């Protein structure tokens, strides 16, 4: 079970995509001023996207892994209570509100 986790590179890539698009948005809001000049030292320093260190990304992977595992396990409990051996959408629906509150 330990080897089955998200790849840190993948999660990091998703983070970077979100951060860089938000940095672009910030630049837009700041006005045409920032758009006119090249990605020079001044603007890039101010609007540089957030980054993450390696361990933080690994820890995020663990958090996401727990999210998926909790979703499956809670749905499995409901399915078991109903006496079926296949997890269906209705089982997930039952556990979804509490799951989203817990994460």
């Amino acid at each position: 079970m330990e080897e089955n986790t998200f790849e840190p590179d993948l999660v990091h890539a998703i983070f970077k995509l979100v951060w860089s698009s938000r940095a672009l948005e910030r630049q837009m809001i700041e006005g045409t001023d920032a758009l006119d000049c090249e990605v020079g030292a001044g603007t890039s320093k101010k609007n540089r996207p957030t980054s993450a260190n390696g361990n933080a990304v690994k820890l995020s992977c663990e958090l996401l892994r727990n999210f998926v595992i909790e979703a499956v396990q809670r749905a499995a409990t409901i399915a078991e209570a109903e006496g079926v051996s296949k997890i269906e959408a209705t089982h997930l629906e039952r556990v979804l509100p509490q799951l989203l509150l817990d994460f």
Partner: protein
Amino acid sequence: MEREEEDSVSELLRDRFRVSTISIAEAEAKRNDMEISGPVMTCIADLAFKFTEQLAKDLELFAQHAGRKTANMEDVILSAHRNEHLAALLRSFSNDLKAREPQSERKRKKSSKKEDQATTSVVHIPDS
């Protein structure tokens, strides 16, 4: 054009993310002696992807609030602070990570920083 490129990158990431989620979900269902239907796994994958995007926004805000440009493990733990069990679990995992490689951390930080800068310049060039 730039939008399209961004969308295709995000599609690709979403698909890769979906594959990993499905393998985790399937393994977990197997451990519970359960089968799991395809739509449920896709649903969980999409939920987890949205969760990741939200997590990215949270981490950015927490890091900014601390006056940093780099998100660290404390920010990740903070994002789970509403759930005590989850926060405790993450804290113990973070202690494991710290204990495992305290000396190589500096090296990795440097290389990841370089990588970041490379990607940001790639993202910014089409914009100007």
